């Protein structure tokens, strides 16, 4: 049968993110896939070299709107590793609490989208409705629904108001009840099972070859989790378990994320209990950053986020390398996609919970005279180009 190439992108029509896949198909079967990234490259690593050690925390928070505390945790871990600083115990619990709340909201977001991609919009509507209270909790505790900016190297910027804790416990309890109902409903539905079971399988060998991380690896039975393996913040002070599944298909990727939400709810509750007992400072002072290198990691909702910083003793990093989880998870579609049906391609590509803003990080627009182009300049440039094209083609 003749081969055809179907492009998806550069801007994904359903996922509303800049991604570009070229699927080679034979009839309905996908035989090959080519991945292009870089449509939205922003130059964060270069920008970080021009900002102070404190400012970079807020820069990396803006790498991604969904996991806007994952990059700061990894970055702060890296700087604290470089300075060999230990943060106060209360700050550890606050970091863990914010990190786990973020996992809850991020997994709920993905779960809703997965329902949407399958054409099961009830799941989407329900789950996103339940995600709202989690954002309200964020607003009450940190002051923002997104971009909480709670961290700085050395600790956290704000203490939490414990008056909200009883209300947070009540909201999380309701979320738990709703999720229990949903997980039973999903896992009993024969349509969902037939769409997900045995589709897009990622083997443990491919997990190793591609270096896949996070729920993508854990669904294939590879028990890796930075929170357990290389504990930071309060992850070694509270009781919790790493959730894993065995088959590596789409169903297991859903199940593993649902299990993680339950685990995260438990962890948030434990952190609140601890915060009611542990009092004190939330910030350790870092006077200066010595020359050297530091590596920090954090288990973001999508997997391990890795930050490497190097200092020459100055006021800003001389190199800052960011490796987001999607960067290693995305190429696994070369292993999972070929051989599957075209109709399953969308959900297989979405099964790693891709985050493109994390994957592409380098944008400074400048022209000869002015330092930066404003919105008006860009509109003017666009008009000029249209005019040029019109003249060229005589229309």
């Amino acid at each position, binding site marked *: 049968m003749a081969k055809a190439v179907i492009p998806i992108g550069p801007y994904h029509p359903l996922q509303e993110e800049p991604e570009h896949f070229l699927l080679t198909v034979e009839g309905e079967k996908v035989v090959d896939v080519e991945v292009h*990234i*870089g449509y939205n*490259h922003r*130059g964060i*690593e*270069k920008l970080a070299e021009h900002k102070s050690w404190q400012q970079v925390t807020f820069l990396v928070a803006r790498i991604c709107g969904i996991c806007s505390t994952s990059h700061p945790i990894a970055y702060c871990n890296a700087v604290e*590793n*470089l300075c*060999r600083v230990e943060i106060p115990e209360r700050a550890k619990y606050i970091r863990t609490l914010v990190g786990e709340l973020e996992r809850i909201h991020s997994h709920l977001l993905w779960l809703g989208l997965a329902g949407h991609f399958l054409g099961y919009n009830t799941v989407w509507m329900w789950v996103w409705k339940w995600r709202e209270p989690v954002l309200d909790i964020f607003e009450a505790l940190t002051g923002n629904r997104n971009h909480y900016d709670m961290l700085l190297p050395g600790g956290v910027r704000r203490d939490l108001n414990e008056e909200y804790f009883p209300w947070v416990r009540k909201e999380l309890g309701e979320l738990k009840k709703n999720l229990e109902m949903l997980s039973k409903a999903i896992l009993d539905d024969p349509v969902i099972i037939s769409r997900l079971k045995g589709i897009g399988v990622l083997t443990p060998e491919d997990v*190793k*070859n*591609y*270096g*896949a991380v996070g729920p993508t690896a854990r669904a294939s039975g590879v028990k*890796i989790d*930075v929170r357990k*393996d*290389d*504990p930071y913040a309060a992850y070694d002070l509270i009781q919790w378990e790493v959730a894993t599944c065995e088959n590596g298909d789409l169903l297991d990727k859903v199940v593993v994320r649902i299990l993680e939400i339950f685990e995260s709810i438990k962890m948030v509750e434990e952190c609140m209990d601890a915060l009611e007992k542990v009092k004190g400072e939330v910030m350790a002072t870092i006077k200066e950053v010595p020359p*050297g*290198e*530091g*590596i920090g*990691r954090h288990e973001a909702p999508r997997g*391990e986020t*890795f930050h*490497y910083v*190097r200092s020459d003793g100055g006021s800003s990093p001389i*190199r800052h*390398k960011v*490796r987001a989880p999607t*960067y*290693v998870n995305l*190429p696994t579609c*070369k292993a999972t996609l070929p051989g599957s049906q075209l109709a399953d391609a969308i959900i297989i590509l979405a099964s790693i919970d891709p985050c493109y803003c994390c994957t*592409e990080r*380098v944008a*400074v*627009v*400048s*022209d*000869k005279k002015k330092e930066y182009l404003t919105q008006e300049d860009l509109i003017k440039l666009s008009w000029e180009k249209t005019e040029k094209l019109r003249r060229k083609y005589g229309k």
Partner: protein
Amino acid sequence: MKEIKERLGDKLLKIYEHTPNRIYLDIKREDLKEVVEYFFLDRNLRFVTASGIDGRKEMEILYHFSEDSTGKIYSLRVKVPKDDLKIDSLTSLIKGAEFIEREIFEMLGIEFTGHPNLTRLLLAEDWPEGIYPLRRDEKGIRDLKERNWEKKNG
């Protein structure tokens, strides 16, 4: 650490422990593939990523490997002289190294010999040849625009 020292012998130029879980090893460019085989296959470590750094005198690439059973990160440091920017590609051994090698290639201009598809990853297709954004002596886009302008308009 003792085991690594014994196994690598004179291939290991320097080993340094910053904190107990962060270990840096200096190795020679020629030995890279052999040492990576030892870490990736024999010790069964996970390849995390590689960081390319312009270290003024020479380029450096750090290959980070994570030992998930202990939480240690081994970073293999390879120095590449600026007058001969070439290094062996690891993509044939580790599939996950394809993207990062392409990124280092376009950002720093280091060539990976034996890479199956050494093309740009993140930069635009019309980005001019020979401009490497993460190099220290790169003046940035202002300089680049002028050069483009001159090229186009003579």
